[in-house]
């Protein structure tokens, strides 16, 4: 038999370690830059930038959630923001103090205008509602493939937005829903992001995750080896929705207000672009794509409003960020369909380099 070829560079994984521990540690390694950047921001950045950074961490949790289903099942998902919205709106409905509720949703059904839950209890209930909706929608989506599945996720987005906008008694319509208790700050967001990364990584490396990725490579072959593709897609869908729901809850508890259009196309495309740029096959791809695009877009936004670079006053370039986002999706799809990260996680790459270094 021929020896291993170098493009296939054997990637060592420490097989003496129990697999679960290995996945958790791997996830934590990937989360290191997330924590470092967060701590630097907390330490150095002015408050308005902390607010921007918080939005970045919400996006990170969404992208990681998106990766769980899209990356492992290889099915395009345009509906994840529906779960972000459901999470955000239900903590708004459940945890907002009565005085604010009297103004925003005085006619809420089921006596919800009279109910105020502790923020943590409200978060748990909201996550439960996300879970139930994920179970119901997952039942359909897991039985579909390819374009049909993607279109259903898209209609999910449209439906959720329609409900948020039109069911004004509960969701207050197109206006912002104010008065949500602001109970978390950036440190909580960082912690949730780390947890999301570890959860996504553990799922990816699990038997279910590997089997689901096998079905993404070749669904017939996977079925011929006994893989229950429908069940695995279902699991990934529900887990993905829960993580996205958690992102929505975070958003509401930091911003103190939610608005329906925050959970619509713009968010869907931004987070999709992040995942495609970084590479959807790995959790590292989600993290890298989110980091690069968040930072890049902040730079571009300053250009948009007409920045001065080295004494030269640049003109206003409105729409530049939208254009860049589109460009990232198009160029990414065209030139790096697997994204920046490809098929290996950051820690797996690092371990490979280390081993080659030691060998030479």
């Amino acid at each position, binding site marked *: 038999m021929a020896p291993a070829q170098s493009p296939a*560079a*054997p990637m060592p994984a420490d097989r003496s370690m129990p697999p679960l521990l290995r996945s958790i540690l791997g996830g934590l390694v990937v989360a290191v830059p997330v924590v470092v950047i967060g701590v630097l921001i907390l330490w150095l950045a002015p408050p308005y930038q902390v607010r921007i950074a918080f939005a970045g961490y919400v996006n990170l949790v969404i992208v990681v959630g998106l990766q769980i289903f899209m990356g492992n099942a290889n099915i395009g998902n345009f509906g994840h923001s529906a779960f972000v919205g459901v999470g955000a709106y239900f903590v708004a409905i459940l945890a907002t103090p009565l005085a604010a509720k009297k103004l925003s949703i005085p006619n809420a059904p089921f006596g919800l205008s009279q109910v105020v839950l502790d923020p943590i209890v409200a978060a748990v209930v909201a996550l439960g509602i996300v879970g139930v909706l994920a179970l119901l929608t997952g039942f359909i989506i897991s039985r579909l493939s390819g374009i049909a599945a993607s279109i259903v996720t898209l209609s999910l987005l449209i439906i959720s937005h329609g409900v948020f906008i039109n069911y004004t008694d509960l969701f207050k319509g197109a206006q912002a829903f104010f008065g949500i208790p602001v109970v978390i700050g950036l440190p909580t967001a960082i912690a949730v992001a780390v947890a999301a990364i570890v959860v996504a990584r553990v799922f990816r490396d699990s038997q279910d995750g590997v089997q689901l*990725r096998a079905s993404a*490579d*070749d669904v017939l*072959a996977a079925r*011929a*080896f*006994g893989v229950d593709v429908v069940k695995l897609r279902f699991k990934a869908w529900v887990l993905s929705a829960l993580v996205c729901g958690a992102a929505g809850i975070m958003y509401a508890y930091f911003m103190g207000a939610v608005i329906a259009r925050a959970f619509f196309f713009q968010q869907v495309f931004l987070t999709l672009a992040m995942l495609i740029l970084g590479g959807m096959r790995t959790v590292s791809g989600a993290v890298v794509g989110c980091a690069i695009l968040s930072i890049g877009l902040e730079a571009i936004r300053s250009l948009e409003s007409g920045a001065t670079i080295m004494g030269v006053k640049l003109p206003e370039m409105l729409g530049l960020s939208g254009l860049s986002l589109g460009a990232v999706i198009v160029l990414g799809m065209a030139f790096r369909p697997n994204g920046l990260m490809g*098929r290996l996680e950051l820690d797996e790459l690092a371990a490979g380099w280390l081993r080659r270094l030691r060998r030479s």
Partner: protein
Amino acid sequence: MLSVEQVSKRFGGVQALQDVTLVCRPGEIVGLIGPNGAGKSSLVNVVTGLIAPDGGQVRLGDRELAGRGPEFAAQSGVARTFQNLRLFKQLSVRQNVEVALTSGHRHRPDRVAGLTVDALLAQQGLSDLAEAPAGVLSYGHQRRLEIARALALGPEVMLLDEPAAGMNDQETEALALTIREIRDERSLGIIVIDHDLGFIMGLCDRITVMDMGRVVADGTPEAIRNDPVVIEIYLGTVH
């Protein structure tokens, strides 16, 4: 024991299978030969549940498999390799085997009790490539990985669809050795399809010949070699 009885399958205007009957006992290597389009792969697809036959039965032991889907066939102990190589290309070699080892034994934990990924890879000479993505392997290695993956199911029956295609003489010889070794090690039935008659004649206990969807001959390699019908339709002008 695998028994295929009176199986038929039509694709549009093509009768891919017509009343095909075949058995494969534990510990037996059965060759399946016939010209291109004879229906060999279609038969494998029916047995492994990827195609529901129009009629007929496929039984493994006392379990009916026909029309119950590929997952059920796999769970029941039917494993295969693919003529056109259908590995999980983005997964590592190791993970390809793991998938079969972790998903295909729900009804038969005892069949996979002694199996490990490392031993299966070693048996197929793939240990050094364990962490490589399956998609970058050479053809020969990919065919070997297809076999390792099939064995990881802990099968009662294994169907190898042209496992020697693209291999040189040396590799083909080594493959024949491995297949015999597998048969001796575990009591499983093996059905081998190939166009390389030397390979099939040397390897198999019994050979079934198909043509235009039908079984046209069935017997020992010796009998098949001398069967006038086989010589005419399969070997054509060869004497």
